[in-house]
């Protein structure tokens, strides 16, 4: 075997041949037309080897087995026929793999996702590492489709129909231990034991895993409609067929065929093909690619190991906790020790929820150092200021911080409404200040606006992007304009929504229409959550500059001390942070109301783009989806404006 491939490597051995996937010019392995077609050739050649005993498939990448199919490629398919042809080709290549006459083993590590896991399913045995951070799963429903390369037929046979559906519907990922318990893999073991596991499997040749009897029972034709019906109801409680068709298509597929026979394979291809050309799949693929684009901005090294956060309010405390969770050493400074205490309590809850193992909770806790005296100022690679939105307080603090910070430290403010140039007035080098604008709640909002002024050095911005990426957030470069991007658009939207109340709509009606549109939270409740005082302050700065209408009710509420969720009363009333009023989501919302809400949002999005807050329309959409809960299946406010 001297054939050399671009993306694959074949190493014959005494007891088995190893086939490495090593995609050229890529950090991770992905299936696209080139890697798939070459795989087909590899399989043909390997199978033709004389005296072939077994084949082991591994990834040559340091990070991960196979990340799945290339989304860029499949988002460009435009007709169902093209899609069917594409999916069938993939299915046939995996069938070629399944048909290898000798035992085959997939050795996975770190992750095997979507098509990558379907590849492993086509092998006889699967081994993975036992790291609790390993992720095995089918993410297809997250991009508007379902598995299409034999996943819907092979997975039910291996682990049972119900378990297979739950895994594919949820897009949930499993670590090795959970995958082993389910029968998805034969072994979840430390990496150093893999060679011995291969040797054992090839000698003992244990029978393939079989689902339990009751799981097999549920997969019989007469029971399938009942099981599928139950699952359908559960799915429908969360999403609508119209907006997210893929899970429903997956259930229909299984109910009809149960994964049995050639007919199920063809039906799988047809179903995926139909989904691939839906607007939802297109939008979700676009969202996926937007995410990748933002992540790509952070590909350099930030050099940040120690973050010093000043101000232990909700934002400062939560930013500090998030950084500590992501392996940064964090010093959190606040003169008020009670604030520090509250931050620690919230942080520990976060750590316990996010870390599966006790020692990781402890590591995150140890990373988070309460620093009432501000010792961290002098050591930090990044200082994030998150004190109250008060210009003179911030200016005074920054005067002191600039003196003590390391010369190469990144200096960042989390301000949402004060111009950076005002904060850095009188500095020797004002270009050192950037904005890192996080969104509330930090834990759930993926976006961080990175605010650059005209004088910001490109290296500094690049380090800031890399930092944001390193804490698993998405950096969005925005200009130092009032409200930056997200708050500016949201302000216009929330003010318009509040204004609609005067036109006779109830708050619950307004929010209901927004939720029916697909927004993560209604604008009225969002205002209550942000805090009406903060909304008012932000609106005041924006209203003048952007000539927005200013509803008087906002100022009245603030004057009355009704500041929203935090005071128990705003537009709604809250008991222990829970809203009392019910918001009904109408099945067919009032189209005029939806338009009255969304037109101002789109208008402000266009205006922000025209003012150069971000460099292109895609970034506006990215900001609104990742920072403001705009429905991903709609692709973004400006995306809709272009296509629909």
């Amino acid at each position, binding site marked *: 075997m001297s054939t050399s491939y671009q993306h694959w490597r074949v190493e014959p051995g005494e007891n088995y041949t190893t086939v490495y996937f090593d995609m050229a010019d890529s950090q991770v392995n992905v299936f696209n037309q080139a890697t798939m077609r070459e795989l087909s050739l590899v399989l043909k050649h390997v199978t033709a080897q004389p005296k072939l005993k077994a084949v082991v498939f591994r990834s040559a990448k340091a990070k991960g087995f196979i990340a799945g199919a290339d989304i860029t490629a499949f988002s460009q398919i435009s007709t169902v026929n093209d899609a069917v042809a594409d999916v069938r080709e993939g299915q046939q290549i995996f069938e070629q793999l399944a048909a290898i006459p000798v035992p085959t083993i997939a050795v996975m590590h770190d992750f095997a996702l979507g098509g990558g896991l379907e590849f492993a399913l086509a092998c006889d045995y699967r081994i993975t590492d036992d790291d609790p951070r390993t992720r095995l799963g089918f993410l297809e429903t997250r991009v508007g489709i379902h598995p299409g390369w034999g996943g819907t037929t092979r997975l039910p046979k291996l682990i049972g129909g119900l378990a297979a559906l739950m895994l594919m519907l949820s897009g949930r990922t499993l670590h090795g231990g959970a995958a082993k318990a389910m029968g998805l893999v034969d072994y979840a073991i430390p990496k150093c034991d893999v060679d011995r596991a291969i040797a054992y499997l090839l000698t003992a040749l244990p029978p393939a895993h079989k689902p339990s009897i009751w799981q097999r029972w549920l997969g019989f034709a007469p029971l399938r409609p009942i099981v599928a019906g139950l699952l359908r109801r559960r799915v429908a409680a969360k999403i609508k067929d119209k907006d997210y068709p893929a899970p429903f298509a997956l259930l229909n597929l299984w109910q009809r065929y149960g994964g049995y026979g050639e007919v199920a394979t063809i039906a799988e291809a047809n179903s995926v093909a139909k989904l691939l050309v839906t607007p939802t799949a297109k939008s979700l693929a676009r969202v996926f690619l937007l995410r990748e684009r933002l992540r790509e901005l952070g590909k350099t090294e930030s050099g940040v190991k120690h973050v010093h956060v000043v101000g232990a309010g909700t934002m400062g405390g939560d930013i500090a906790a998030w950084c500590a969770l992501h392996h940064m*050493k964090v*010093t959190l400074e606040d003169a008020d*020790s*009670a604030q*520090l*205490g*509250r*931050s*620690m*309590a*919230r942080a*520990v809850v976060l750590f316990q929820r996010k870390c599966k193992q006790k020692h990781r909770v*402890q*590591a995150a*806790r*140890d990373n988070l*150092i*309460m*620093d*009432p*005296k501000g*010792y*961290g100022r*002098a*050591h930090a690679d990044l200082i994030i200021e998150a004190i109250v939105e008060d210009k003179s307080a911030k200016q005074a603090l920054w005067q002191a911080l600039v003196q003590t910070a390391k010369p190469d430290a990144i200096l960042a403010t989390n301000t949402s409404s004060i111009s950076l140039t005002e904060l850095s007035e009188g500095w020797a080098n004002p270009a050192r200040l950037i904005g890192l604008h996080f969104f509330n709640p930090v834990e759930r909002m993926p976006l961080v606006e990175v605010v650059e002024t005209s004088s910001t050095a490109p290296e500094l911005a690049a380090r800031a992007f890399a930092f944001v990426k390193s804490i698993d957030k998405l950096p969005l470069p925005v200009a130092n304009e009032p409200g930056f991007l997200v708050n500016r658009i949201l302000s216009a939207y929330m003010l318009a929504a509040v204004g609609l109340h005067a036109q006779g709509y109830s708050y619950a009606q307004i929010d209901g229409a927004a939720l029916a549109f697909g927004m993560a939270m209604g604008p009225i409740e969002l205002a209550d959550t942000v805090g009406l005082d903060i909304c008012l302050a932000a609106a005041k700065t924006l209203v003048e500059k952007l000539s927005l209408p200013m509803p008087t009710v906002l100022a009245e509420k603030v004057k009355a001390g009704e500041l929203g969720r935090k005071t128990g009363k705003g537009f709604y009333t809250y008991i222990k942070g829970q809203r009392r009023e019910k918001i009904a989501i109408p099945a067919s919302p009032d189209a005029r109301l939806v338009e009255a809400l969304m037109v101002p949002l789109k208008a402000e999005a266009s205006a922000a783009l025209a003012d150069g807050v971000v460099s292109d329309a895609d970034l506006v959409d990215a900001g609104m989806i990742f920072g403001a809960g705009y429905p991903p299946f709609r692709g973004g406010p400006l995306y809709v404006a272009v296509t629909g």
Partner: protein
Amino acid sequence: MAEQAEQQTGGVIYVIDGNRTPFLKVEGRRGPFSPADLGVAALQPLLQRQSFPQSAIDELITGQVIGLAEETNVSRVIALRAGLPEAMPAYTVNRNCGSGMQAVTNAWHALASGQADLVIAGGTEAMSYSPLCYSEALTAWYGAWSKAKAWGQKLHLLSTLRPQMLRPEIALLKGLTDPVVNLSMGQTAEQIAARFHITRQAMDNFAVQSHQRLAIAQHDGRLSEISPITAPDGTVYADDTGVRVNTSLDLLTSLKPVFNKPFGLITAGNSSQITDGAAFLILASEAAVKRYALPVVARLSAPVWVGVDPASMGLGPAVAIARLLKQTQHQLSDIPYFEINEAFAAQVLACVAALNDADYCQSALGLSEPVGLIDKHHLNVDGGAIALGHPVGASGARIILHLIHVLKQRNAKRGIASLCVGGGQGGAVMVEV
């Protein structure tokens, strides 16, 4: 003598900085911090305020008595968790109540010998974490059970199980009992109280004074040696929690003896408290001080350790102080301030009496004259373990750290920190600023 002289001039060892957690009184259940948690909490602010690179630290030495099964060699656990370099070694020392001072002693020798230039030493103890153990009978029963295979055997074993076998043994109480003379620490204090005629009233007065002095020091903000610590539930501990501002002599007089019942003198009120806490000091050689331009806060003499009769272990400080004075060629009158750890009021008072007792000084120390009388106004001026507690592994480091602050605040040049050690030992070190 030649050896001692060499020790004395062998090197000047500097203290650069120090920090401790508040000492938290045990409330009958596990406290919010494990021994390693406390150590990390004491170390982190200390490290954050240094200017030298962490790679310059040669080792971390931690005193601890009650080790946790999940934190063996707690020093290494603390070092790694506090983010100290992996390449830096760390070990744990145990000399019972003297462990924290023992860690400083080890550091002193490592620096004096030139093997190290920068060492962090101190101690940690979470006495609230001391375990309940299975009784010996139950342990034996369990061993048999795990070997039993047949049902008959198992049934027979079940029939031998008795309720009293389930009564746990409290490791803390065992640890506070000398296994050689079979006396609890409190019982040894009763013995020396009797020997030096320390009255119940003197003990209770001393205890009240300890609380009052600590309360005043807290009020005046003189305990800057403490950095606040934050529990996982968000509670911030900024001060030692054992102090009882309103303790009165009447209240203490009403307490019953706990060791020698019913006629003993030693009560919970005139003994040190059971407490969790940690303290660390950064020690440096002259070379390190020069290389990193370190701010020197104090110099340490070579620590002195002595052995005494375990049945009167509380006299350890008397012997250690006498030895230290001789070694450093000082008179007692040269020493303006003393910190003698308050294991028991009786024991501190007995040490003061012993040093001024001609008979004792002659028979036990071989001195023709008494060492002298320690002025009570200059002894434990901000209170001691009776008020703030005695986390056994940490106390030795705390009294050195605190003495440095006392000397600075009172513009004094010199002081001695000393403590008694269960098993019959005493340690003392001279601090100069």
